[in-house]
């Protein structure tokens, strides 16, 4: 069985030729002096003008859904009641490390983004939502410094929950900040309509928020100097391969082939990818040459999601990987919606028997039916992610599925396939969890 090698020296490097916005080049633990002298915590003059700038920047959400950040700010700003903003740093996705990295190493960048989101939305009430204890410590230390700065101007409280896949979903965030359990609720209402304390609530991923100081500093057109028309700027990619975990800042529009080549991966042995953390399922080799852009990957019926990419090598089996991810969904769903706990269990059972060369063609047809029929039947997106995992396998690797029905899969016969889904390690071995 393959185990995930902990991260080594590749952690936290920016793609060549760009000056990093999100990854720091300097000291490990950002302090307020360094952050301010680098241009942070600038007073916000005109909040309305800033919101227009965010809209024009084209910044999209980095938490998974790629929703335009400006449109979200606008919705809570214009709602009528005074809003609340929440920085979502829970990062329940096991293949992603970026949010915890940002909070641990660039807490002031995150808090500056939260400040700008709050002032832009028209409120001083803000929350940071985390599960990682070290992220919480780092944020609280930075908050102590920031509160002494009159320009900070907002009130921030921190909520810590137990880590869980579903705990970062936006309605789980709202329910937990309100003092309830960190599990999703059904919609409506959505947080922007009715969230924390019943007020319109903007839940923003910490990486999305960390881009706001850059929109303020560079303006919309300067912000757009990197990236593509529909996916402007840079994003943090958590890249997991048998060689370890890398955290990289990549301008949108770059290809995976360029990233892997630069990162020293053996592109020739790539069989495919697991995209968007666990949410988008497997992708084939053609993903190597598609620009990393939300819409380009959506057109492939895949997705960049939260920016986590796991490499499948020649000796990986996409059936085994998909089975491992589905088993994770069957374990980690919140157990609230019948279609989700039954559907993920059923899809997991078929994928595990397919992995073990025991499934029938009829089983695979039932899987195909669930992969479309279960979409939209959960209170949160988990069930859609699970459906994506099944659909992507059937679409991208039909020959491998056929071999698992009728023949003998090479990597599986060699006994070297994953029984656990890929997961990313935040720090090099010996540097704590």
């Amino acid at each position, binding site marked *: 069985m393959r185990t995930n090698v902990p991260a080594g020296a590749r952690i936290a490097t920016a793609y060549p030729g760009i000056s990093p916005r999100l990854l720091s080049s300097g000291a490990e633990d950002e302090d307020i002096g360094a952050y301010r002298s680098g241009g942070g915590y600038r007073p916000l003059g005109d909040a309305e003008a800033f919101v227009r700038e965010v809209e024009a920047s084209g910044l999209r959400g980095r938490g998974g859904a790629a929703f335009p950040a400006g449109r979200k700010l606008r919705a809570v700003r214009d709602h009528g009641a005074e809003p609340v903003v929440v920085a979502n740093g829970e990062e329940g996705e096991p293949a992603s490390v970026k949010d915890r990295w940002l909070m641990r190493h660039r807490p002031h960048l995150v808090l500056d983004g939260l400040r700008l989101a709050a002032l832009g939305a028209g409120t001083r009430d803000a929350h940071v939502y985390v599960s990682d204890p070290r992220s919480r410590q780092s944020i609280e230390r930075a908050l102590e410094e920031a509160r002494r700065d009159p320009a900070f101007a907002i009130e921030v409280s921190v909520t810590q929950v137990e880590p869980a896949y579903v705990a970062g979903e936006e309605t789980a965030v709202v329910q937990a900040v309100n003092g309830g359990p960190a599990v999703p609720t*059904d919609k*409506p209402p959505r947080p922007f309509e*009715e969230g924390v304390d019943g007020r319109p609530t903007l839940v923003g991923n910490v990486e999305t928020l960390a881009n706001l100081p850059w929109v303020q500093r560079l303006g919309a057109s300067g912000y757009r100097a990197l990236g593509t028309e529909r996916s402007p700027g840079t994003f943090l990619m958590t890249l997991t391969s048998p060689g370890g975990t890398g955290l990289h800042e990549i301008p949108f529009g770059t290809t995976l082939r360029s990233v892997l080549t630069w990162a020293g991966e053996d592109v020739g042995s790539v069989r495919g990818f697991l995209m968007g953390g666990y949410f988008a399922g497997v992708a084939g080799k053609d993903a190597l040459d598609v620009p990393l852009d939300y819409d380009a990957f959506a057109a492939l019926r895949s997705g960049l999601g939260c920016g986590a990419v796991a490499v499948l090598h020649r000796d990986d089996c996409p059936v085994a990987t998909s089975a491992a991810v589905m088993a994770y969904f069957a374990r980690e769903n919140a157990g609230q919606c*019948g279609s989700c706990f*039954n*559907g993920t269990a059923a899809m997991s059972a078929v994928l595990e028997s397919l992995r073990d060369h025991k499934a029938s063609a009829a089983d695979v047809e039932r899987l195909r039916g669930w992969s479309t029929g279960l979409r939209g*039947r959960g*209170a949160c997106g988990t069930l859609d992610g699970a459906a994506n995992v099944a659909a992507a396998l059937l679409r991208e690797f039909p020959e491998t599925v056929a071999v698992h029905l009728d023949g003998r899969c090479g990597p599986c016969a060699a006994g070297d396939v994953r029984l656990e889904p890929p997961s990313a390690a935040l720090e090099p071995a010996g540097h704590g969890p």
Partner: protein
Amino acid sequence: MRIKLDRTLCDGFGICGVHAPESFSIDEWGYASLAAPLAGSGEVPTREEDGVRRAVLDCPVHAITELPEAGRPVA
């Protein structure tokens, strides 16, 4: 008439799907979601309003609630 369905409450008795088959879509385990015409808005087709009212009353776990036209659940 607008409704919402809380799938975290639904216990899969399938009663709503009997009363208003065009408004509730029942999965193979008996659990309900709003059917495609209602998705998003929760707006019930006029000819199904009577059936949906019975479903609201008969759902054993009160997973179905009527919404005012503006959006918040009726208290």
